[in-house]
């Protein structure tokens, strides 16, 4: 059920000069969230900044089997992400969700390969957990500019998620875009593999192409500017060829990525 929660900041961990993980006391939302869904966050008083901003739910926080809240992995790029970066325990952040179409989970023996670029890591903590709970063998391909911007590596490995890393400066893993090792490993993979991706759009496009080249399906989570997150404003549109979930193809047309997405099949999207 959709909820708007004035969530207290439980803690705020700065991971680097730009990245932070903020924990919010919004258990009702956390409980209802499926992997790939997002919340619309409003920080700051008054009309400036005015609009909410979308953030993937990063972790669902549990203690003693009770859901305590959720975290967001945020990268500082502007006014709201600065407020999230600077927030301290006890501040409140208004949090609306859960919103959007989640990832479709797969079943074994199909493997899941998650591909994250930068802050695109955000949806893969909850997705990874859900896949593991399904018994799905899971890999995380994770790329960033530099090794210092690869976070939560232990979190994933300790759960048994295999890591494949790449950095543009080569400080950790391949000195390459993450699609290079992805392509290489797909070349060699023989079982069923579904690819999940989140990151900058050029990366998503490359992932979708690599997946298609190897005859694998991909589910990509896109980031468009969102005014409302609920289908009200038509700001967040993206061109698709066919309706999500339908086999009928139509000429390229705009759909609202907040309710038809943010997760789309890679092959449905029209890359421009």
């Amino acid at each position, binding site marked *: 059920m959709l909820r708007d929660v004035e969530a207290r900041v439980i803690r705020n961990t700065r991971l680097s000069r730009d990245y932070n993980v903020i924990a919010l006391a919004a258990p009702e939302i956390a409980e209802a969230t499926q992997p790939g869904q997002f919340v619309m966050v409003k920080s700051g008083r008054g009309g400036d900044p005015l609009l909410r901003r979308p953030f993937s739910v990063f972790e669902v926080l549990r203690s003693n089997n009770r859901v305590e809240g959720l975290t967001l992995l945020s990268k500082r790029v502007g006014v709201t992400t600065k407020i999230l970066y600077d927030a301290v325990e006890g501040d409140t952040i208004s949090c609306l969700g859960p919103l959007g179409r989640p990832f479709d989970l797969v079943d074994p023996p199909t493997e899941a390969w998650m591909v994250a670029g930068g802050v695109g890591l955000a949806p893969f903590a909850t997705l990874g957990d859900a896949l593991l709970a399904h018994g799905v063998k899971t890999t995380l391909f994770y790329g960033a500019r530099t090794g210092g911007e690869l976070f939560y590596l232990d979190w994933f490995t300790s759960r048994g998620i295999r890591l494949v890393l790449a950095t543009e400066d080569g400080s950790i893993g391949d000195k390459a875009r993450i699609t290079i090792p992805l392509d290489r490993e797909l070349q060699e993979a023989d079982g069923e593999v579904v690819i999940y991706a989140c990151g900058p759009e050029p990366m998503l496009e490359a992932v979708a192409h690599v997946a298609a080249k190897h005859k694998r399906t991909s589910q990509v989570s896109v980031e468009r500017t969102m005014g409302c997150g609920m289908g009200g404003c038509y700001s967040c*549109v993206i061109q698709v060829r066919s309706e999500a979930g339908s086999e009928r193809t139509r000429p390229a047309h705009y759909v609202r990525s907040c309710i038809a997405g943010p997760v789309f099949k890679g092959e449905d999207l029209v890359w421009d």
Partner: protein
Amino acid sequence: MKTLSGTDLSVQIGALRLKNPLIAASGCFGYGVEYAEAVDLSTLGGVAVKGLFLKEREGHPPERIVETPSGMLNAIGLQGIGVHRFIREKLPELRQLRATVIVNICGSTLDEYVELARILSDAEGVAALELNISCPNIKEGGITFGCSLHGTFDVVSAVKKVTPLPVIPKLTPNVTDVASFARASEEAGADAVSLVNTFLAMAIDVETRRPKLSNIVGGLSGPAIRPIAVRMVYECRRAVKIPVIGMGGIASARDMLEFIIAGATAVQVGTANFVDPFIWGKLLAGVTDYVRRHNIARISDLVGTIDTTSREKQWISS
């Protein structure tokens, strides 16, 4: 319709009685059905659905919105499913949700407005027509009508001839004298006027020197424009006898009351719904609380009750 406390929030727009003066603004509430999870649509005075053309439209490419100080620009370009799919796919659900549906219509020609009005008059569950002659974002939209007194008169009278539904032209604020457009509408037989649509505006990314919107210009909405919108509603209220439906930056019960006191019989809320889709109950609660505190029996008694006398006295005395 009275509330428990006996307060009557209902208002009259032409032949249409709204249970309260709170209407969701067109283009800010999808087709209404998107918000059914956040608000019981039957509790709203009305739901103005997203502007419809005869045909489906793709709208402008992204970027379609950009935030500005206490406001936002949009250039959606009236993406929409067209009137036929609307009647087939959305109207039944809106009827079931017991929404009072106001359909916002847009045409490139006078004939298109007439045709749309005809089609919608035959559909079940349409309460009123709002004529969008004021969208700043598309050249072929009604703005050519909305910026000309003759055009406004012509489109309103043509539509009135073919529909029994209340007809509400929506006025643009991008004119020198908005009250004259309200007058032209009234003379043409409009049942009410609504205003304001958005202000033509733009934003530039200084690093790339490109407009932030793909359409270059867009429409400014939100709290930033409220003081201008309130003034325009005040001017229109003094110019015409038909009801004025006011909007522009309403984000609290206080803002809603400001419009009503300035002269709005009903109000619409757009941008604030993006920020808080649960705002509707808060607005109605706030207004109910106010009329109770001020012992106002009917909200309609509050319309246009702005008191300028004492100020004028003070003015003379100085």
